[in-house]
């Protein structure tokens, strides 16, 4: 079965990203397909490579990046939500005249259409939030 996953909250502050990760991993282990993980609202903050969590804590961004690598996951950060919250890739930074970018490997920035597409294509859409 094809799942679409929506993550609405940032890392560490709310458990949403943790639960979404555990769900995604479990779905993959059961042989399901993950069509896309879409990060919206504060969820876009999962996609910054600048986090430095304490050494005895999980690294939420690296965990997503690694899972994406292993399973060719499509991790999409909503562009509108990302702009409001300061998540940029190289292109966006250039386009907006910003001197730095912070997107993490394995994440890509795209439009809200990607969320609707996930709703249309996936057999089930599962939303994780506050």
């Amino acid at each position: 079965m094809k799942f679409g996953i929506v993550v609405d909250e940032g890392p560490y502050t709310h458990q949403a990203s943790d639960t979404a990760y555990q769900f995604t991993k479990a779905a993959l282990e059961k042989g399901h397909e993950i069509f896309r993980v879409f990060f919206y609202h504060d969820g876009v903050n999962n996609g910054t490579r600048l986090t430095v969590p304490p050494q005895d804590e999980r690294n939420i961004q690296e965990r997503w990046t690694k899972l994406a690598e292993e399973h060719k996951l499509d991790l999409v950060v909503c562009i509108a939500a990302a702009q409001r919250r300061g998540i940029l890739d190289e292109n966006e930074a250039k386009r907006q005249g910003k001197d730095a970018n912070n997107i993490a490997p394995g994440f890509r920035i795209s439009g809200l259409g990607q969320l609707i597409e996930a709703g249309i294509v996936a057999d089930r859409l599962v939303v994780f939030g506050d």
Partner: protein
Amino acid sequence: MSTLHTVNKSPFERSSFISCLNHVKAGDAVLMIEDAVVAARKGSAFAEIVEKAAKDCTLYVLGPDLAARGMGEDDLIAGIKLVDYGGFVDLAAEHDRTNAWL
């Protein structure tokens, strides 16, 4: 045609749990995750409401979240079923849609 409802907040903190129970259809499933697992504890002020809801729909609680809050199977209201993340995936697959009460 049935729905998997997910609730992730304590009924003591937010109204989403009660609102969810007010909108389930007979045959639906409700899965308590994250802070919502505290609703599954017997003897709480919400136990009666939960017991009543269990007659109309199937109630599940996410085991890993339950354990994190210091609870286990013995603490559960009778009839609530324990699942792990794999069981959560199965529930999402078995029902026709999911409805997250955020």
